[in-house]
């Protein structure tokens, strides 16, 4: 096909505007027909000059006269050169893919929108949104927009590539040639401009002077631009002053920083604190350091601190022992290999460590043993008790010369006298019976304890303590004489007077204590059928003795569920005794006990065991009593400050209660005499929950060796120096400090400790306690 001459296409025919579709058909046909120069007299037709690919490599010149419509040269091809003689409407060069478009005049909005290749020269100004959404496809040269004048608002929005040049020449927009908010969302390309501007999107673009290569590009291409638009004379003016040109370049992704520019630290220092004053909002109200801290803190910033509460509480065994024997301390001494010391220690608390602890005591220490909490056998004190036979008495304190009378040489009397002797005083026991020992020697069945044990311990105490055998009941007169002669008097007469039930025939019954006394002396006789009224522990003793003496049928009755327990109860049950309750005695006949419900219990012998009362006939009236017992305060002091009373004369109890009362009364007397007070006994018992029993062997059923037994003592509340806390502390904050002699302590380095409480969690003895730290203000 040969090249044809220029063709003119009219946009208006016979006064009727040619439809954009028809004009497009005619332009395409002209190109197909071989026309390469087409002049169009436009009447607002859309999209003139685009899509002329049918010309292939050959260039096509489109000259637009008249009024071009929107999107002149849209989808333009590289072969197309469009020369618009006059201003153009919106979106000139829209989606331009290579056409070179010259606008000889102004262009309205959207110049070059989304163009990817080609060039647009505008000899005047543009409207809004020029060079928006432009692209640079690396396969081709970047698109270019040259504007001799200025551009409108929102210039280069979302510009993604290409080059724009805004010359700022002869434009009515004298104070701003880039319009309002250019470069919003710009991600690529560059913009040369010359002239005043009012900001750009600094989040998207940066301003820079063109470098040499860019300047060279600008000046050489400027020539072509000016030549093309016929304004070559402007060249020196536009390129004469390099400094007049600036360049806006899209920020690269890594150069964009979202968020505010001033750091908060800077703001705090320069604005916040400056306005409010030093240390900010509340710097005037608080001196406390408020700087940030770690979640895990040490020192005063710890929320919790561990405390080494060694021996701050009583172990349950000791707390449970009415005598107050430091049972646990004895086991600790054994663990240290000091068996003798452990044995001897008991004598500081009781004159009867073997008799009572080893045989007669229900061993409240063992009942309270923490090990029982987990069904582990209690640490067996009877082993140690029995071993105490060999105990050596401690050396008494220097003599004070103070004399204290002790009325009664039973368990409580001997205890108080023993304690007073150890404290350097001079106790004198006034015993109304033939021998010392009270119930121990008088009434407790021989089956429960070997005589030689009792004898040994009695002689140990009687060697040290002066005693006077009155061998008759004390009179009021004698009592006041005794009281006169001594600094203090302690009444320890026990409860010797049996209580009897007020029923017909009660004279036929024998009081249990009397029966036991006779039995012990080998004088008691029983029939075949025995009824014991009152099934407590004394009743059980009596029942067991009756069986031993030949009774075939022993029955214990009680008005309520019997309170008997322990060894006594077991002995009675083993002897075949029957227990009946509730039963109320109506009368005692020669052959039976008649009950209120009509039942008749055949009985050859009736023993009454409903408790005993002290015989206080010697007591002066000014010493208060209640229901037959002497009234005392917490220190066993009676209403006469010079007189103390202890044991069953005050309240019926166990041997260990009586011994404990003796010790406490001695301490009270000693305190008064020396004028200051000991308090160790007053420590509260430790919460057994703090003690860890998981460390002990649960397969042990019983102990037969004191040394092994000692090793299994949980040492509640008292450090056993195992070093576990030192080991388990995750931050090595705990260390053992050796003190004088065998003194030591474990201490915490607060600067290391984080307050985790591992020491408290792991301590076998429960002496570490984690507590809240002191408030900071």
């Amino acid at each position: 096909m040969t090249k044809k001459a220029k063709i003119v296409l009219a946009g208006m025919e016979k006064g009727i505007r040619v439809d954009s579709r028809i004009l497009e058909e005619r332009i395409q046909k002209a190109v197909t027909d071989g026309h390469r120069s087409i002049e169009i007299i436009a009447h607002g037709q859309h999209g003139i000059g685009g899509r002329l690919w049918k010309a292939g490599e050959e260039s096509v010149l489109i000259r637009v006269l008249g009024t071009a419509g929107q999107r002149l040269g849209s989808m333009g091809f590289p072969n197309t050169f469009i020369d618009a003689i006059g201003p153009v409407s919106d979106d000139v060069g829209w989606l331009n893919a290579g056409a070179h478009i010259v606008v000889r005049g102004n262009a309205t909005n959207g110049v070059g929108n989304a163009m990817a290749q080609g060039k647009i020269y505008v000899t005047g100004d543009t409207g809004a949104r020029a060079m928006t959404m432009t692209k640079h496809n690396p396969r081709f040269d970047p698109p270019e927009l040259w504007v001799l004048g200025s551009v409108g608002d929102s210039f280069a929005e979302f510009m993604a590539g290409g080059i724009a040049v805004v010359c700022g020449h002869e434009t009515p927009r004298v104070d701003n040639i880039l319009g309002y908010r250019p470069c919003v969302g710009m991600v690529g390309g560059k913009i040369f401009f010359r002239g005043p501007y009012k900001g750009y999107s600094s989040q998207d673009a940066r301003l820079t002077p063109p470098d040499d290569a860019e300047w060279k590009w600008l000046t050489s291409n400027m020539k072509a631009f000016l030549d093309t638009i016929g304004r070559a004379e402007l060249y020196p003016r536009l390129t004469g002053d390099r400094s007049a040109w600036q360049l806006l370049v899209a920020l690269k992704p890594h150069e964009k920083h979202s968020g505010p520019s001033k750091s908060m630290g800077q703001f705090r220092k320069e604005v916040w604190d400056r306005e409010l004053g030093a240390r900010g909002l509340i710097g005037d109200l608080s001196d406390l350091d408020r700087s940030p801290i770690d979640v895990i803190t040490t020192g005063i910033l710890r929320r919790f601190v561990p405390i080494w509460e060694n021996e701050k509480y009583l172990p349950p065994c000791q707390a449970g022992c009415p005598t107050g024997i430091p049972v646990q301390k004895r086991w600790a001494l054994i663990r240290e290999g000091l068996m003798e010391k452990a044995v001897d220690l008991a004598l500081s608390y009781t004159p009867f460590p073997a008799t009572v602890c080893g045989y007669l005591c229900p061993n409240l220490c063992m009942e309270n043993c923490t090990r029982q909490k987990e069904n582990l056998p209690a640490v067996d004190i009877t082993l140690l008790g029995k071993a105490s036979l060999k105990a050596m008495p401690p050396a008494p304190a220097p003599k004070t010369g103070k004399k204290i009378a002790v009325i009664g040489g039973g368990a409580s009397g001997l205890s108080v006298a023993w304690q007073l002797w150890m404290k350097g005083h001079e106790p004198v026991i006034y015993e109304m019976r033939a021998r010392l020992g009270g119930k121990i020697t008088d009434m407790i069945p021989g089956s429960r304890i070997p005589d030689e044990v009792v004898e040994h311990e009695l002689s140990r105490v009687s060697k040290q303590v002066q005693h006077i055998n009155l061998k008759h009941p004390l009179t009021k007169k004698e009592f006041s004489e005794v009281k006169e002669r001594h600094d203090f008097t302690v009444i320890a007469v026990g409860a010797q007077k049996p209580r009897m039930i007020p029923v017909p025939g009660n004279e036929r019954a024998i009081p249990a204590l009397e029966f036991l006394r006779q039995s012990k002396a080998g004088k008691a006789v029983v029939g075949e059928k025995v009824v014991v009224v009152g099934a407590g522990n004394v009743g059980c003793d009596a029942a067991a003795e009756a069986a031993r003496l030949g009774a075939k049928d022993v029955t214990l009755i009680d008005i309520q569920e019997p309170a008997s327990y322990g060894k006594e109860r077991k002995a009675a049950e083993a002897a075949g005794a029957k227990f009946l309750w509730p039963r109320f005695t109506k009368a005692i006949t020669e052959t039976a006990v008649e009950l209120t419900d009509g039942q008749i219990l055949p009985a050859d012998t009736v023993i009454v065991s409903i408790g005993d009362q002290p015989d206080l006939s010697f007591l002066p009236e000014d010493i208060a009593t209640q229901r037959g017992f002497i009234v005392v305060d917490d220190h066993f002091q009676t209403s006469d400050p010079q007189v103390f009373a202890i044991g069953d004369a005050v309240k019926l109890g166990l041997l260990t209660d009586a011994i404990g009362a003796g010790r406490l009364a001695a301490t009270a007397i000693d305190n008064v005499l020396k004028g200051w007070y000991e308090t160790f006994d007053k420590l509260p018992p430790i919460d057994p929950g703090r003690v860890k029993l998981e460390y002990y062997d649960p397969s042990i059923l019983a102990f037969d060796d004191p040394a092994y037994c000692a090793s299994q003592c949980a040492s509640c509340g008292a450090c056993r120096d195992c070093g576990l806390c030192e080991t388990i502390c995750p931050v090595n904050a705990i260390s053992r400090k050796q003190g004088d002699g065998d003194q030591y302590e474990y201490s915490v380095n607060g600067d290391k400790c984080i307050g985790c409480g591992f020491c408290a969690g792991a301590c076998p003895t429960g002496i570490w306690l984690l507590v809240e730290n002191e408030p900071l203000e």
Partner: protein
Amino acid sequence: MEPVGCLTPFTLSVKDLPWIILWDKEKCTLCGRCTAVCPVRAIELGVHRKRAINVSVGLTEKPGNLFTVYHGIDQRTDPVHACVGCGMCNLVCPNNCIIPAHNEEIDKLRFHNNVGGVPRRRGGRRNVPGVILDQIKFIRISMLTDPALDAGRHEFELRTLLGRILPPEEMVRVTQENGWTPPVREIYPLVIGSMSFGALSPNMWEGLQMGVAYLNEELGMPVRMCTGEGGCPPRLLRSRFLKYVILQIASGYFGWDEIIHALPEMKEDPCAIEIKYGQGAKPGDGGLLMWYKVNKLIAAIRGVPPGVSLPSPPTHQTKYSIEESVAKMIQSMYMGWGFRVPVYPKISGTSTALAVLNNLTRNPYAGALAIDGEDGGTGAAYNVSMNHMGHPIASNLRDAYLNLVKLGKQNEIPLFAAGGVGKSGNLAANAAALIMLGASGVQTGKYMMQAAAGCLGSESDRCNICNIGICPKGITSQDPRVDRRLDPEKVAERVVEVFLTFDTELKKIVAPLGRSTSLPIGMSDAIGIADHHAAERLSIRYVV
């Protein structure tokens, strides 16, 4: 874990607790960090005995027991030390070997957390996840119908008005007659709701205020924060930052003498005065700041001696009727600043909200009405108040707005909505939904704690121990050992980020409506919901 002993009614096992600590013996290095950090001491080091049976093959020898002892992390089961699920143990664990897991069944603890006959109290929100606002969709997306805007490209001025707006004719009349027109503030529509200095730790409170100041002064966003009831630090009262502050007065009147004393020295007026009559989290109930939280600092700000309990009763003592109480309070508070500062009441969501609103419409001074719905958070409330009392904000707010429409006053008394805004994390969506239902703005507190300070509380009853002063993140504590975990600067940074994010999201929602300067307040044709009853109740479109 405890040995079998005597059972008590409140003897619980781990299985009975809401949170069960999972501990991996193999991975644990016994570093002590978990037990050191646990706020409620729910875990401790435990000693365990392990038993193995030694049996020789062929039974040739007598079998024997082999006992060993090991140490591990134990969970305590007594109600006082029950795990709260905060997960701080996991946060500090170097080996990721400990974590609280939510019990899959309803816990038994709930029947026992009333030790001493005192019902459970806690912080947090109603323990019901989700909020109906989450279901509201923005269905009007203008592409070609309205001038669609681009949230990223266009400039937005999302502002709202706080204060009584007079209709033009009234404005003319009022100006002529008494020369006073009510003050109106142009503020950002998301307000940081009332959380007191005392309920929040000093570092948290300062962080929030610092962030607000930054937003105003560095970014030009007129964000406001309400003090809550607890006074306002004297320095803030005397600073220019006061204009970013809404001062709250409530039934305890704490700190108000300090505010009055500061009047002569104020450089700026506060943004507004909020009169608190009710709170969404605990409608009808007051507050009590326990004496042990009233340290020197709190005492100074509240104008009380340290170490006394500070009750905020459920009601204001000297107000006996709605007419009287509202009029009296509003008048008084206006006078404090020479009628230059807008004053508005805040009530809890309630079926009586319209009565209050109608009253306000007749009161020419009423600057707005804030309504706090049932999903609001609090530092301390009875569990029963939190879980079971109050009105949901959506319908309450909607009723209020439509009532204003009926009166023709919808552009005159701004409504501010609160209570669960952003409960599920959808702050902007919830806010936009409320705005289109008729709110002029929203208030949010709990979201700020979560987003700006990492609050661990959840509606699955996680943590929620704000009330006992041992907030593991230091947000609601007065103990420097805890609250110094929080860096005010970092809180402020997060406040800024939250607002920038909110701003972008709100733009994304309103841009398709063609709104860039005026909020679409009450533009309910733009929202819909896939729940017919909800749609009917809220008078919005039912969309499926």
